């Protein structure tokens, strides 16, 4: 379950033979898995692949019909370990996560899986979070394929190609006893398109438990045999399969002197660049022959030789660093004694996304084309001119805490605490709370990975002499922080403050459930409780504070940071994710209103004649609903604070005004809908008395 209902998407997953699917790339992959007859699917959420798991978890009925097991793993290592089913049994399965970060976490299990190899098709769908819009470090998942001998598919961003490669991926995996990674970049996950569907295939029937086979264990001496098998049997089998089934595509062209080798995922950008240079049309007909690598690992030497031999030069279009493919090609051509010149990162940038504009410049360099260089120069000049249309750069608009987010007040409190007790080292983490690193808070000295904040603060107090503050979400706690952070700190008698933001979901990825989620109909029978867990682990100093209580939180933080003695101090900042809460509350309130029941709607506001336009309240909040408007005072100019109707009445404005003793301009209004007779009587009485007092005042 996640942010919304996926009934429409589930309908698409149910499409039968010869129907037309229209939708996003990642959903097409999900459908392809079902068409391939998977027995199990698992994963850990993260953009851009969250959708795959979200939809499947919501599709209980369909999966029950097909006999598919779905596992919402608690981290990527758990998801990768799930593939052990295909190690021991001839059953197909797939897992998914965000890469490169998820692959990092999964890599221990992946190595141990890749060594013995698989007998059932095993696919790993990775969302390659690279380039424009990426939220993680910029590294290539390619390295994992190379070092563990996993095969890496990089299909063209075209739904029929993506679906075909998923289906072929299972075959390849089985033909070469190797797990296969399918890499989709961010935009490919969200690209829309259509393909002709096939009927879904049920998962494998029940099997007898596998017999003991020491050779299937990644344990010596089997591991030595595995290493030999990887190069002597699995690699040749894979290359033969790729060649036989034409997984890579060659698009012919009229020119025989040059050629372009491209990662499948970059094919569309390449074609646009060629079209801009007048070397291709919009329908994919190119003058320059193209070798499109829908499989980027392993490379097939025979195919490479066939494409490159006889040409003067080829260009390898390969995104990211280092240039693994270019290195391999170079080696292959050297060994085959092919004298064709190889270009790549000498023409194209070492780092950054390869958009069509970037490729035009690279192609112009590769082709030594005068008009091409001119086009590239014009484009660059255009960007410069456009940027000078404004005198000052535009303020950025990064994603931030939502309206009413329960995590924002914790940073308000931390900022106020720091104003009193001075700067503290703040170890930030992955999750919505990483928005605390942005204005107006700008807090966080490091981010070391999901659930790693406390571990990353372990050596800090010996450096600064002060207790550091580690911020972690409940998602990060269960993913990793509980062991790497809490257990590590307790075991080492560490000294530090851990603030756990308990909002009940992994919110940044779309409010998926996680072990301590307490949502209706979800695992109420086994709710894992963070506070109880910490107590059992031996945390002595433990406070749970309502996250909106800014003054209490500030005092608790001060006490934790400055208090005497040593040891881990944990503050659980408790407040449900406001997006999830609003979805529930809005529906409940609407139903109660309809039934004629009394419903109170809360909104905050600012007296615009009392606000003096200093915006200290905004510097302690940054809420999207707390904004500014022109000053109504005829004698003042600075804009005043204003609360807009999207306010959900979380209470932070009042709490901050109180905790920081800011200004008296905030008010809180309760609108009583469907008032009772008592409400109306009281309201009438108040109006009469106040009216009388006002009359007297005027008189």
């Amino acid at each position, binding site marked *: 379950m996640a*942010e919304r209902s996926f009934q429409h998407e589930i309908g698409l997953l149910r499409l039968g033979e010869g129907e037309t699917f229209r939708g996003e790339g990642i959903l097409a992959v999900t459908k392809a898995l079902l068409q391939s007859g998977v027995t199990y699917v698992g994963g850990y959420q993260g953009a851009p692949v969250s959708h795959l798991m979200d939809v499947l978890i919501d599709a209980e009925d369909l999966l029950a019909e097909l006999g598919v097991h779905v596992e919402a793993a608690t981290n990527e290592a758990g998801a990768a370990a799930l593939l052990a089913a295909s190690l021991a049994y001839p059953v197909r399965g797939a897992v998914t996560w965000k890469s490169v970060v998820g692959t990092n976490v999964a890599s221990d299990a992946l190595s141990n899986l890749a060594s013995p190899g698989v007998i059932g098709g095993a696919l790993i769908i990775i969302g390659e979070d690279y380039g424009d*819009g990426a*939220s993680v470090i910029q590294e290539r998942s390619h390295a994992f394929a190379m070092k563990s001998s996993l095969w890496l598919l990089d299909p063209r961003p075209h739904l029929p190609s993506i679906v075909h490669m998923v289906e072929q991926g299972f075959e390849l995996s089985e033909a070469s006893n190797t797990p296969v990674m399918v890499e989709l970049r961010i*935009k490919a996950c*969200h690209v829309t*398109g259509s393909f002709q569907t096939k009927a879904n295939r049920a998962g494998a029937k029940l099997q007898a438990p596998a017999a003991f086979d020491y050779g299937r264990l990644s344990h010596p001496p089997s591991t030595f045999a595995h290493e030999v098998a990887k190069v002597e049997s699995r690699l040749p089998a894979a290359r033969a399969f790729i060649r036989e089934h034409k997984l890579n595509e060659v698009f012919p062209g009229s020119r025989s002197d040059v050629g372009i080798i491209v990662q499948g995922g970059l094919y*569309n*950008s390449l*074609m646009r660049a060629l079209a801009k240079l007048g070397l*291709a*049309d*919009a*329908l994919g*007909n190119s003058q320059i022959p193209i070798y499109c690598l829908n499989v980027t690992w392993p490379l097939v030497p025979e195919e490479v030789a066939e494409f490159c031999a006889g040409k003067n030069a080829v260009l390898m279009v390969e995104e990211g660093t280092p240039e693994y493919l270019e290195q391999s090609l170079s080696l292959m051509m050297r060994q085959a004694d092919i004298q064709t010149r190889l270009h790549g990162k000498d023409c194209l940038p070492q780092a950054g996304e390869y958009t*069509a*504009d970037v490729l035009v410049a690279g192609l112009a360099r590769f082709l030594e084309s005068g008009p091409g260089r001119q086009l590239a120069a014009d484009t660059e000049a255009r960007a410069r*001119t*456009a*940027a000078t*249309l*404004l*005198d*000052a750069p535009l*303020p*950025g*608009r990064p994603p*931030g805490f939502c*309206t009413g987010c329960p995590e924002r007040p914790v940073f308000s409190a931390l900022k106020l605490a720091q104003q009193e007790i001075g700067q503290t080292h703040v170890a930030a983490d992955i999750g*919505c709370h990483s*928005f605390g690193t942005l*204005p107006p808070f700008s807090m966080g000295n490091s981010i070391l990975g999901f659930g790693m904040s406390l571990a990353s603060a372990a050596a800090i107090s010996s450096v600064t002499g002060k207790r550091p503050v580690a911020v972690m979400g409940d998602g990060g706690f269960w993913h990793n922080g509980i062991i790497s952070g809490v257990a590590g700190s307790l075991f080492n008698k560490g000294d530090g403050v851990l603030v756990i933001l308990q909002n009940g979901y992994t919110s*940044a990825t779309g*409010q998926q459930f996680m072990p301590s989620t307490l949502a209706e109909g979800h695992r109420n029978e086994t709710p894992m409780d963070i506070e109880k867990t910490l107590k059992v682990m031996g945390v002595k100093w433990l406070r749970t504070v309502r996250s909106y209580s800014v003054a209490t939180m500030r005092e608790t933080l001060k006490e934790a940071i400055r208090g005497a003695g040593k040891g881990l101090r944990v503050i659980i900042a408790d407040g449900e994710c406001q*997006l999830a809460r609003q979805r529930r509350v809005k529906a409940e309130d609407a139903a109660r209103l309809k039934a004629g029941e009394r419903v109170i709607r809360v909104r905050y506001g600012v007296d615009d*004649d009392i606000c003096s*336009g200093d915006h200290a309240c*905004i510097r302690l909040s*940054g809420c*999207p609903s707390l*904004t500014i408007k*022109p000053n*109504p005072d*005829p*004698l003042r100019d600075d804009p005043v604070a204003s609360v807009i109707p999207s306010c959900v009445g979380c209470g932070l404005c*009042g709490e901050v005004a*109180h905790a920081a*003793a800011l200004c*008296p301009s*905030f*008010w*809180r*209004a*309760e609108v*009583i809908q469907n008032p009772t007779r008592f*409400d109306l009587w009281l309201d009438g009485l*108040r109006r009469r*008395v*106040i009216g009388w*007092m006002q009359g007297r*005042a005027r008189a």
Partner: protein
Amino acid sequence: MSPISRPLCLVVAAMGGEGGGVLTDWIVEAANASGLAVQSTSVPGVAQRTGATTYYVEIFPTPLAELGGAEPILALSPSLGEVDLIVATELMEAARSVTRGWSDPERTHLIASTHRVHAVAEKMEMGDGRYDEEQLQAAIVAGTGGRLLFDMEQAAKSAGCIVNAVLLGAVAGSGLLPIAPETFEEQIVAGGKAVESNLRGFRLGLQAARGDIPAPSAVSHKRPHPPVAGAEILMERLAFLPAGARAVAEEGAKRLVAYQDARYGRLYVERLDALAAITGDEAVLARVAKHLAVRMSFEDVIQVARLKTDPARLDRIRAEVAARPGQPVVVRDFLKPGLEEVCALLPGFVARPILAAAHRGGWAGKAAWGRQINANGIFGFATMRLLAGLKPWRRHSHRFVQEQAGIEDWLAAVGSAARLSPALGVEVAECARLIKGYGGTWTRGMSNFQRIRDAVIAPAATGIWPLAFALDAVANARAAALADPEGKGLERTLAAIREKAAA
């Protein structure tokens, strides 16, 4: 190679929660229903609701049926200068798309709402951090070939929908895409959500694209002071001021009579009169008329109580929270007067020793009395009425005496500066804007002003500095004081001024 044309390229620039995704889906579905090859993609990133989000759509203008089984290869991101249509939900995001270079001054048509949603960086400034809207508009005009710009937020509000439906109507009416307006409209119906209100919004957008652009709201955001007994007589005495300054001073007179009494209003007029004897410059007099009125109506507990019990206030709140007739509204206020604010009401001989002790003890900024008051409850209202009723006492309060001394000092500085140059007079007068607010904000503003007064205004007003340098110094110091609440910017700027002045 076939000489097939290029696809039409669309950028939808939105912010999380504004329905950019739905708008994109409507466009994609409309293109699909028209038998055209279409592809969209996006970088929605994390699920948050505030960041800028861009959707990219390519539509191939030749119907699929005429391509002989071939399929166009569509790109996943815009190329610089090759976007045919930019659709933006807000003015700054429209300008961002243009200044990123996506648009071309000839090819690109832009459809955007002119309302502003301010970025955090704009909102958190201590003064006015809003990006200049005229510059945004000018950049859009310079960078695009054609445009449809109007306040679609307003239109959406009147239709009861969100801005995306209005934008869809505007796209449909633009005639830039080979898709019939009815086909776009059908997608709203097919979507099945909020169909009625979305269709109303769609039609407003469609009409606007056909030339029937809703007139911008003519209502000024300024709320003039209501007439008050005793102010007319004072206003008649303002004839000595140039017209521009006089209009401002009339507001000031009304404000101060309401704030204190007619006698206080008279003091305001006399102060202006004294300055007018020094300079007849309209700019100086207008600026001082404005800031003097604000400074004289300094915010104390009495004033806050008066504004909180103003009869018009509850109506404003009811309108703001959209309360229906018959729905009771309970209003709570968050009051937390600090030690300074409480002492401000006491006579000087009592307040001074307390404040001195508090500052020595380091608890001046910490002592505060927090209260939530039920503003329209009988007890809460009576309490605030009582406080507002202390108005006559104000003249004897510590703060009143302190403020009058500060005002006289500032006026004297403006006078000397204006004698040297009216422009310098304006700059010095403008420094009054640093003093505002309550509690810590007021303390900080006061101390910043005082530092600038001693280090910059005083030497500038004596004429020992060259005029150009003096003008720059005062303006820079004022801007620096508003740059950061910690005062680091002011520190640096004052040091730089000292250094330059010494050189």
